[in-house]
């Protein structure tokens, strides 16, 4: 029973990857990434047989609070404060995005067959789903113009990592888990502040314009803004 639910969650996560790759609205992307984080956070409650342990409950609820409530709120605030345009401004077309995503999923499935999970977990497709989600995160970071989408990509990568970690529920002390979550929270917080500074300093948050520091254009040295 639990296994079926877990497998449904995995399928949902893969579908969310694909919708992230084709979604053009920034607000929708924020919601999709949040939904993915929340769905992934249900996984530890299904691990093992019988009622979930209290440790799993604490952990899951912290993750849900962070990814489902706090992060979307922070990102939406950053979007409003930075006065960003409402679309994600991709550098490549949506068909190309989705083809890349599907290709990544194929590659991840192949890798999954090379890395068999121990018998303790019977949920299929954990490794491919996790790797494909990480790839989707990279796609968002590299092919979308705005600083906010880069943070979003970072969050999607985190989601991918958590799909794996949560489904397997690798033995880690709760304190360590919470320290890791605190780091991620502070990371998003600091990135949010930095986005605010970028929008004030540059009047936009397009990161492809952040290209003054490079060794590839030495002729630009000293050139005024």
């Amino acid at each position, binding site marked *: 029973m639990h296994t079926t639910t877990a497998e449904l969650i995995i399928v949902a996560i893969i579908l969310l990857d694909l919708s992230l790759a084709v979604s053009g609205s920034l607000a929708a992307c924020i919601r999709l990434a949040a939904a993915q984080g929340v769905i992934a956070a249900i996984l530890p409650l299904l691990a093992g047989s019988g009622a979930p342990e209290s440790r799993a409950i604490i952990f899951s609820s912290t993750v849900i609070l962070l990814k489902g409530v706090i992060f979307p709120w922070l990102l939406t605030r950053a979007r409003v404060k930075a006065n960003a345009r409402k679309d994600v401004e991709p550098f490549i077309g949506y068909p190309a995005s989705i083809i890349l995503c599907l290709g990544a999923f194929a590659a991840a499935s192949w890798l999954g067959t*090379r*890395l*068999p*999970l*121990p018998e*303790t977990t019977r949920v299929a497709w954990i490794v491919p789903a*996790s790797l494909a989600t*990480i790839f989707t*995160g*990279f796609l968002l*970071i590299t092919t979308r113009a705005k*600083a906010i989408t*880069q*943070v979003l*990509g*970072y969050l999607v*990568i*985190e989601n*991918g*990592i958590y799909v*794996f*970690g949560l489904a*397997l529920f*690798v*033995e*880690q*002390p709760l304190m*360590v*888990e919470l*320290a*890791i979550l*605190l*780091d*991620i929270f*502070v*990371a998003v917080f*600091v*990135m949010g502040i*930095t986005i605010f*500074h*970028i929008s004030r*300093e*540059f009047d936009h948050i397009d*990161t492809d314009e*952040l*290209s*003054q*520091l490079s*060794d590839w254009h*030495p002729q630009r*040295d*000293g050139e*005024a*803004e």
Partner: protein
Amino acid sequence: MIILLMLVPLLAGLSAFLISDDGRRRGLLVSASALHLALTILVFVARPEIIPGDWFGLDALGLLFLGITSVLFFGASVYAVKYLSFEKYDPGEDSDEGFIFNNQPEAVFIGCLLLFLSAMTAVTVSRHLGMLWAAVEATTLLSAPLIYFHRHKRSLEATWKYLLICSVGIALALMGNLFLGAAGIKAGAGLDLESLLSKAAALDPAWVKAAFLFLFVGYGTKMGLAPFHTWLPDAHSESPALVSALLSGALLNCAFLGILRAAQVCAGAGLAGFTGDIFILFGLLSLMTAALFILGQRDYKRMLAYSSIEHMGILSLGVGLGGGAVYGALLNSVAHSLTKAGLFFVSGVILAAYKTKHISEVKGLFRRLPKTGVLWLAGFFLITGTPPSGIFLGKLMILKATLAGGHYVAAAAYLFFLAVVFAGLGRIFLEMTFGEAPQAGTSGKLPGESRQMLIPAACFFVCVIILGLYMPGWLSDTIAGAQRLIGGAV
């Protein structure tokens, strides 16, 4: 004792946010770092036993990197007092582009600096890989405000790249940690270093390999190995001199420690050959990248940053070769940290006097700032490994091991890239130290040479020269102990 090492800078850092008086806050910085150094010396003298299952403990490897961090931070804190008082009266005008900017509030700067020390200490004493990860990520987050001390567009761009690239990189290292956990599920190894090492033989090799790749790319990004180094020259060139020194000398080593912990587990699992090849490949790649970009470099702080990439490549190469080369690599990491920190300190003095980072506009250091010029040139000889220097010894040991292991291609590439770097750096350093000083700007109120800003660099340089001539027994024992841990037993 170990908890105290993390607690002192943590509490000092938090209280720095509350103190409003500049002088008292700077005093706190210096005294907290002096206390940290004293505690570090204490643990060197009497190393506390490692309790299995504890999250924190000190082995020879951690101790070595803790020592480097603590010494560098003390030097940086002495430097910071004078630096910050100069910055206070600086109009904050960017000379290269001529715009006005503000500085970060000093309380935030000093507070983050101390918290950064606390996080780096946590990296060196962590015995649990999850804890180690959390500490490494904390160093990224705490050092980002330090890079953005001068509030202008370029430093903001550097901060953003640093924050994003390193966070994403380190996220991959988290995946590596989880993979390592998956490798040990059957054996019940968890992520505690002790239990991982004791059960290393029972780990699933396919998962350990995948874990190592993720950890290598993840922490390698933070360490500045090519091709994941892209954030490094920007962050090092835009941050204040003492922050560059800490990033280069202390932080890169901390990230390296993360990779070394993974390598320790791999060696235990009988995968030393697999990790060795990866270390050698990326080591040579970093050397090549550094050599290429040093040749045409126009910015002297970026040049120092690329030189750091070169040295990270040397460390990686040495660890990959194994045996005596590991000793050479670790010795090199000590000597590089001291030398590079010293060079960054000196570069800060040059920047304050000349108001530019362009190499072509800095001429005649010997005439205009004689003491700085001498140190700058001495730093050049030390960093390129001219004897007597600890770096020379380290590089020589690595070369010897390369030849002894029959890696003739690697040895040839290693020597070639070192020669290119030497030539590239030589041109830049000589151009800057000799020649006529520019007339414009020499009059008026110049910061000139502050002894307090030069003494830390001079002390570090003397230490490196001493390392090249005489190796104290305690240091040699620590390095040898660390070498045994990584699996470089000869």
